[in-house]
C-alpha cells in the first residue's frame, strides 16, 4: 500500500505491539471503502495508541486521556455530514476514565467508529491495571492477578443501543470488520483484544491471549448490528430573539415617587411571591420608574421561603441590594423567618404582616391584615401588594391592575376581591 492514509515509515510502537495492526488494518479498511483521507477525522488521546496520529494523512485531533470519544462526538455533530468518517482510537485505560462518554455516545448513536485498543493494562505509564483488565491478569498494580473482573464494553454498548459492537482478536487481517464498522450509520464499536509485549507478556509469561479472553468470559463475536439512525442536532432555521416574547412596556401611568423606594415581599414557595413582584415591577416601568426585582429562595426552590426585593426609583438604580427596606410585607411564617433579622433591625419604615402570624420585635410601624383568610394562600402576596399600594401609591394601583390584566393570569384571580379593601 502506498502512503495515501498512513505514512510508510516505521510506526511508533514497541516491536510486536498489536497497535501496529490496528493502524495497518485501518489503512486497509479505508482503502477498501475508498474514502478520501481528508474525509476522515482521526481522534486519538493519551496512551501508546495515541501517538500514531502523526503518521496519518487524515485530519487528526489528539486530545486528553479518555476524552477522545466526547471530543469526537462534538466533531461528528458539528460536521453533521455522513460522508465524513470520524474514527476514535482509545485504549482500555482511556475507555475506563471516559466510560461515561462511551455510554453516552453509544446510547445517542453518535455517528463514529470507536476502536478500543484493549491490551488490558495501561502501557504508556508502566503497565497498571485498568477497568478492562480481566480477573487474574497480572499487572504492575495487580502482581497477584487482578482480584475482580473487567467491564465487558461490547455488551454495555449493545445494551445502550449502539448500532454496531464487535470484539475481535487483534491479529492478522481484520480490516473487513473495520470496514464494516466504518460503513455503519451511527455508533460503531470495535474492541480489539491485544497483549502488550512490554508489560502484559512480561507479567503473564505463560498465558495466551485467546486463553485469557476465554477465561474472562469475553466473547469474540458480534454483539450488535442494527439499523439505527445517527443522532443529529436539531438546527433551528430561524431562531427567535428572546426579546420577541417580552412585551414592550409602554409608560401609561405616572408615579409621584421622588426618592428611591425599596420593598421586600416574603412568603412561602408556591405562594405567588415572585409573580406578584414581577407584576409590580412591570407596573413600575409602566409608571415611568426604574426598577430592580430580585428573587431569593433556598436551593430547592419549591420548598420553604420565597422572597423578593423590589427597588423602584425615579432615577437610575445602581446598587440593587436592599439593606434597609422602606417596607417589608410578610405573608407567611417561612417569609417571616427569612426576613426576621431585617425586620428586627428596622428602626422606621413599615411592616405589613398577615394577622395570623405573631408580630416580631421591630422599630417599624406595624400593620396587620388577614391576607390569607381573604385571598387564600395563592393570592395573598398579590393581595398584600394591592393593600400596600392602596395605602401608599408609590405606583398607581391602576398600573398594577393593568399589569395583572396583561399577564394572562387575570382570569385566575378575583380582581374585585384583590381590591376589596377599597370599600373598607
Amino acid at each position, binding site marked *: 500500500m502506498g502512503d495515501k492514509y498512513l505514512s510508510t515509515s516505521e510506526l511508533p510502537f514497541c516491536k510486536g505491539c498489536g497497535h501496529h495492526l490496528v493502524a495497518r488494518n485501518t489503512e486497509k479498511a479505508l482503502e477498501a471503502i475508498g474514502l*478520501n483521507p*481528508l*474525509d476522515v*477525522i482521526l481522534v486519538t488521546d493519551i496512551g501508546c495508541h495515541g501517538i500514531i*496520529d*502523526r503518521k496519518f*494523512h*487524515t*485530519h*487528526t*485531533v*489528539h*486530545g*486528553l486521556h479518555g*476524552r477522545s470519544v*466526547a*471530543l*469526537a*462526538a*462534538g*466533531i*461528528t*455533530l*458539528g*460536521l453533521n*455530514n455522513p460522508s465524513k468518517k470520524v474514527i476514535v482510537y482509545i485504549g482500555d485505560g482511556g475507555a475506563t476514565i471516559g466510560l*461515561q*462518554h462511551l455510554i453516552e455516545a453509544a446510547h445517542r448513536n453518535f455517528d463514529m467508529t470507536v476502536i478500543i485498543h484493549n491490551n488490558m493494562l495501561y502501557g504508556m505509564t508502566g503497565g497498571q491495571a485498568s477497568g478492562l483488565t480481566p480477573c487474574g491478569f497480572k499487572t504492575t498494580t495487580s502482581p497477584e492477578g487482578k482480584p475482580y473482573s473487567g467491564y465487558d464494553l461490547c455488551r454495555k454498548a449493545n445494551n445502550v443501543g449502539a448500532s454496531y459492537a464487535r470484539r475481535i482478536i487483534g491479529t492478522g487481517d481484520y480490516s473487513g470488520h473495520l470496514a464494516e464498522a466504518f460503513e455503519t450509520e451511527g455508533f460503531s464499536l470495535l474492541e480489539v483484544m491485544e497483549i502488550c509485549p512490554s508489560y502484559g507478556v512480561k507479567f503473564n509469561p505463560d498465558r495466551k491471549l485467546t486463553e485469557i479472553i476465554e477465561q474472562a468470559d469475553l466473547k469474540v463475536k458480534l454483539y450488535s448490528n442494527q439499523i439505527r439512525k445517527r443522532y443529529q*442536532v*436539531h*438546527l*433551528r432555521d430561524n*431562531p*427567535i*430573539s*428572546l*426579546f420577541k416574547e*417580552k412585551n*414592550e*412596556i409602554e*409608560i401609561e401611568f405616572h408615579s409621584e415617587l421622588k426618592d428611591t423606594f425599596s420593598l421586600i415581599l416574603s412568603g412561602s414557595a408556591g405562594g405567588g411571591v415572585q409573580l406578584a413582584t*414581577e407584576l409590580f*415591577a412591570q407596573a413600575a*416601568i409602566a409608571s415611568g*420608574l*426604574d*426598577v*430592580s*426585582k*430580585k*428573587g*431569593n*429562595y433556598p*436551593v430547592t426552590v419549591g420548598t420553604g421561603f420565597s422572597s423578593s426585593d423590589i427597588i423602584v426609583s425615579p432615577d437610575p*438604580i*445602581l*446598587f*440593587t*441590594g436592599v*439593606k434597609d427596606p422602606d417596607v417589608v410585607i410578610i405573608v407567611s411564617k417561612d417569609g417571616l423567618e427569612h426576613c426576621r433579622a431585617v425586620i428586627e433591625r428596622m428602626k422606621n419604615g413599615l411592616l405589613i404582616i398577615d394577622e395570623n402570624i405573631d408580630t416580631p420585635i421591630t422599630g417599624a410601624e406595624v400593620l396587620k391584615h388577614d391576607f390569607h383568610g381573604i385571598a387564600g394562600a395563592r393570592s395573598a402576596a398579590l393581595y398584600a401588594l394591592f393593600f400596600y399600594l392602596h395605602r401608599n401609591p408609590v405606583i398607581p394601583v391602576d398600573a398594577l391592575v393593568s399589569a395583572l390584566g396583561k399577564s394572562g393570569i387575570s382570569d385566575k384571580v378575583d380582581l374585585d376581591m384583590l381590591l376589596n379593601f377599597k370599600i373598607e
Partner: protein
Amino acid sequence: MILANGSMLIIEALAKAGGDIFIGYPITPANSLYQYGIQRFPMSLAAPDEITTLQWMAGFSATGKLPVTATSFPGLALMIESINMAYMMELPMVIALVQRFGPSTGTATCGAQGDLLLINGLISGGYPVPTFCISSMDDCWDISASAASAAVELRTPVFLLTSKEMVMPLRGYDISSLSEIDPVSYSYHDDDRKYVPYEPGNNLVPGFLPVGNEKHQTRLTASTHDRNGILQHTTKEALANTTRLQGKILKNLPEFTFHELDEEDADTVIVSFGITSPAARRAVRTLRKNGVSVSHLIAKTLFPVPSLYIDTIRNYRRVVVAEENQNGQFRQILFGVSGREGVTGVNTIGRMITPEEIIEEVTGDGR
C-alpha cells in the same frame, strides 16, 4: 422598556455575535443562561456532565462552530483540564462563569467574586485566558459580544465572568437603544499553499481551518507540538509555539481592553469590576456630592491585566479595590501579595458590598 435579566441580554448578545451552539449542564446560578441558551441558539445540546460539555464544545469548535456554555465553580472545576486542551488546540469558545459563594458547593444561591485567582492561574504554566467581566446591564450586551469576537479572533477559549446578582435580578431595560451586533467572522486559511495549523499568522494568531475540510489536512493537538500540530518533546519549535500562546493574547490585548475610567483630580481611585461596580458608582456619586474628589476605574477586561490599569492606578496615592471575596483577589493580582502602601480593599463574603462600605473606606481612617 422591557423587564429583563442579565442572562437574557447575555444570551441574546452571544447568539447575535455568532454563537452557533449552546451546550449546557445545569448549575445554579447559571441556569437561566442555560435555559435561554437552549431556547435562543441555532443549535443546543444537553450534556451529561461538565467534562463532556467542554469536550463537545471543543469538537464543535474544531469544525468551525462557535460554542457557548455557562457554569459556576463546581462545573468549572470539572472543565479545567478540557479548557487547557482547548487552549492548547487554540479552539474558540465562550465560557460564561456565574460566580457563586464557595468554597466547594458553598451556597448556590448566593453571589460572589471568588474565582479570580483560579481563573488567573487556570492554564498550567500560567498562560492567560482572556477574561471579560460584566459590570452593568449594558455590559451584558456589549461585553458579551466582544467576548465572542475575542474568542474567534484570538482562536482561544475566553471567559465571560459574572455573578449571581448580575444575571438573575429583573431590571427595567430599554432595548431600543441597544447597538447592533454583527456576527463574528472566521477568516479561514484560503490558499493553495500548504496549511500549517499552528503557523503564526496575523498578530501571532494561526489561521484556522476546520477539521473535515477537503483542501488541507488539519491537525489539532493538546500536547506540546510543533507548527504542524505534531506532538514534540521540548524542541525549539514546540517551545516557541507554546510561548506564542501567551504572546498572541498579550499582543492583541489593546484591541480587547474594555474599561471605564472616570477620573478627577483626586488622590484616591476606586477599582471595581462586576457586581461591585454599580455600588462603587453610587459611592462615587455620593462622595462627589459631599465634596470628596475620587476617581473610578471599572475593569471589564480582567485577564490578562491590561497595562493601562497599572499605569492608571500608579498615579494615585490611595487605591481602594472593592470585591466580593475575603482575600482581595484582584488586589493581589494587581499589587502582589505584599501589596503597596495606600492600597486597601472593601471585601465581603456571603452578601453584596454596599455603597456605604465603599464610602467609609474612602473617607475613613485608612485615609
